[in-house]
């Protein structure tokens, strides 16, 4: 029995409302199937438009085995390419970010234009057809200041995601921001544990003293129940929508993304120790009102976000191995905002720096315990962990579906 059969059987036998069996969190072979079935097929959050502000600006990322370049071309369009030279495969861009008129492979200086076409390859002989050796493109979409990529040969239609989240993001003008601070932490746990932890605030009271000054523990805020039956949330939506800000809870039909605007505690307007704004220049002058709370967006499997009036915090999840996950956090502020004048960096990043580190410990302890031979799946809280259950359901559903497709002889490539 190969690993795919084994996974399929375990998924079929899975007890609803319970955590997954141990190998889903630990087994390298399962991890490889996760990469193939989820990460190499879904739309992944790569970074922000504001990280490639000018033609020639690029950043790179690594998704499993795939190094990828995201670059803004001469016409201003954001494009993504496989970061592998068509000559002998070397990485063309080794820097995390930079600006370059052309993409030049450091090995033999094969030179690619910003649209991926090969424009120069030294002394390749008269029969060399440069047009056959452009950089391979990666599907790339920009929406509301977010850049998504898909490594799939035939990417899923991005249209429904765009239609859902664009109206919510548009008023925040995130394409015109700047990254005030960025951190990447490595959490020694499976990527699904990172997500499971994110998808509930059941753990917040005992672990996140800084975050809990401003962020509500109410299950309706973090979870996927919507929250319309909570009068405070309903009032918040009415308040925000009256300001022209789409706010009501929306979730994609297949559950891979959710967007909604949630109130913060009491008078808080930002994730600071005081609850007061961290940045005196709001993200955009178009939203002058206070108390718009936090817009919460998740998009499986790569990102969750908190978008406030004064800044936005975005999170990118990238698996490194079966028991290692990189989480990159970016604090976006108004492009004109000046550190030390319009914001104090320590104040801006304090709450989420602490919260991230607390979450890292939680995930690592979780992973420790799961590695125990004594581990067996446990039940989620029906009150608090609806969001976790929904995430695990999403994962199990697409995995079961894709493993079945893979098994179908009509779909199997000879």
């Amino acid at each position, binding site marked *: 029995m190969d690993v795919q059969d084994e996974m399929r059987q375990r998924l079929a036998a899975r007890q609803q409302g319970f955590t997954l069996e141990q190998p889903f969190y630990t087994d390298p072979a399962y991890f490889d199937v996760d990469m193939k079935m989820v990460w190499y097929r879904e739309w992944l959050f790569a970074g922000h438009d504001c990280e490639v502000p*000018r033609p020639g600006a690029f950043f790179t990322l690594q998704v499993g085995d795939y190094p990828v370049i995201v670059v803004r071309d001469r016409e201003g369009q954001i494009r993504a390419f496989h970061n592998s030279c068509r000559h002998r495969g070397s990485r063309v861009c080794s820097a995390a970010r930079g600006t*370059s*008129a*052309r993409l*030049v492979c450091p090995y033999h200086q094969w*030179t690619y234009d910003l649209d991926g076409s090969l424009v*120069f390859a*030294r002394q390749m*002989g*008269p029969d060399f057809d440069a047009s056959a050796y452009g950089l391979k493109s990666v599907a790339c979409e920009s929406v509301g200041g977010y850049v998504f990529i898909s490594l799939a040969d035939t990417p899923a239609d991005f249209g429904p995601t765009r239609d859902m989240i664009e109206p919510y993001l548009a008023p925040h003008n995130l394409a015109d921001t700047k990254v005030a601070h960025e951190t990447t932490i490595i959490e020694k746990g499976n990527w699904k544990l990172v997500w499971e932890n994110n998808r509930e605030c059941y753990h917040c009271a005992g672990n996140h003293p800084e975050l809990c000054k401003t962020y509500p523990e109410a299950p309706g805020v973090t979870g996927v129940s919507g929250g319309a039956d909570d009068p405070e949330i309903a009032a918040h939506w009415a308040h925000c929508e009256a300001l022209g800000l789409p706010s009501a809870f929306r979730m994609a039909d297949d559950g891979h993304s959710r967007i909604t605007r949630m109130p913060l505690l009491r008078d808080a307007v930002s994730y600071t120790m005081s609850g007061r704004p961290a940045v005196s220049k709001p993200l955009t002058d178009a939203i002058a009102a206070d108390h718009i709370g936090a817009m919460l967006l998740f998009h499986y499997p790569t990102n969750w976000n908190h978008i406030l009036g004064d800044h936005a915090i975005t999170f990118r999840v990238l698996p490194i191995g079966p028991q290692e996950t990189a989480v990159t956090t970016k604090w976006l502020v108004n492009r004109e905002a000046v550190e030390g004048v319009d914001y104090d960096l320590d104040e801006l990043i304090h709450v989420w720096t602490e919260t991230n580190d607390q979450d890292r410990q939680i995930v690592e302890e979780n992973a420790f315990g799961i590695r125990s031979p004594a581990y067996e799946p446990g039940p989620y809280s029906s009150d608090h962990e609806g969001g976790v259950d929904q995430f695990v359901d999403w994962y199990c559903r697409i995995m079961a579906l894709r493993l079945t497709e893979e098994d179908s002889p009509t779909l199997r490539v000879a």
Partner: protein
Amino acid sequence: MLKITDAPTGSPYLHLDEMQPWNDHLQTLECVWVTDEAPGVKTFAFRSDNQTWFRYKPGQFVTLELPVGEEPVMRTYTLSSSPSRPFSISITAKAQADSIGTRWMFENLVPGMRVKAYGPAGGFSLYDHPAGRYFFLSAGSGITPMMSMLRWLYDCAPMTDVSFVNCARRPDEIIFRSELELLASRMPGLSLGFLVEERPRTQSWFGPTGRLDLTRLALLVPDFADREVFCCGPEPFMRAVRVLLEASGFDMQQYHQESFGTGPIEPVPAEIAEASDGLLPSEAPEVATTPVTFTLSGVEAEAYSGQSILQTARASGVRIPAACELGLCGTCKVKASGPIEMNHNGGILDDDIADGYVLACCSTPRGPVSVEA
């Protein structure tokens, strides 16, 4: 003497469609003939040593590696031959007393001798700017790319409307004059004009004399405004032409000039020397050099007129990494200050330029320059 049977032994005669194009890193060039064109001007013709043919655009150039001393020198010459006669190529060069590479060729290059060459390359060709009517304007040996294009038109599109003007100091210095007159007798659309600076004392001259100005231009080519202009000659000449055309309201989109600021080019002594001939005495450049300081290496160098920063660096032992040498890949990006003219091909961003960077391969000092290399 070279004979047809000198082809590599055992290799049968090949038809064009059976032959591979010349490959500059596999095959050298073999000189097949040398002829005098005008005082101090010779044409050198080459074939490949391996039964290949030459694929190029009329107007392109080759770079020859000439074994002048211990270190070979690289010299770039536009081709005077036409790609419609693809079995050989020719260059036509003018040598002055102070030229090095061209002087070496004049004294040493004879039929049967082989030299290494790179190319053909360059974007100065009517291929890239098709038009109904052309105006080929040249001075001195700047006639060579024009001759290549005209010979190509004669072979392939002989009814083309071309106004061909060459400026020279004296009538006997007009290169290809008799061939041009022959072509004019067979190409109904070719109108020929020569402008000489000095009226000769010992022969009659019926053409205009003096330096090119708007009056003479209108006289030689009344409808120049409606033509696609290709211009080649010493830099002061081309600069004067640009000023003239701009002043006349000419659409500069229709103007193209041979620029030795791009390409894998070492300076062309013929061009430098010729410039000092004084086609336009008031604007003749000094053959004098421009100081270039390489700050990281602590080297004080001198750039010859037309020599790029990269060439100057190489000549003085300063290493700047470079790959395409066409202003395209950006490998030779360096910080530099001082009066610099750069003709890049998209290999550098405006922001980099604003930050004081240049591409060394396609940047020429226009005065004292300091380079971080």
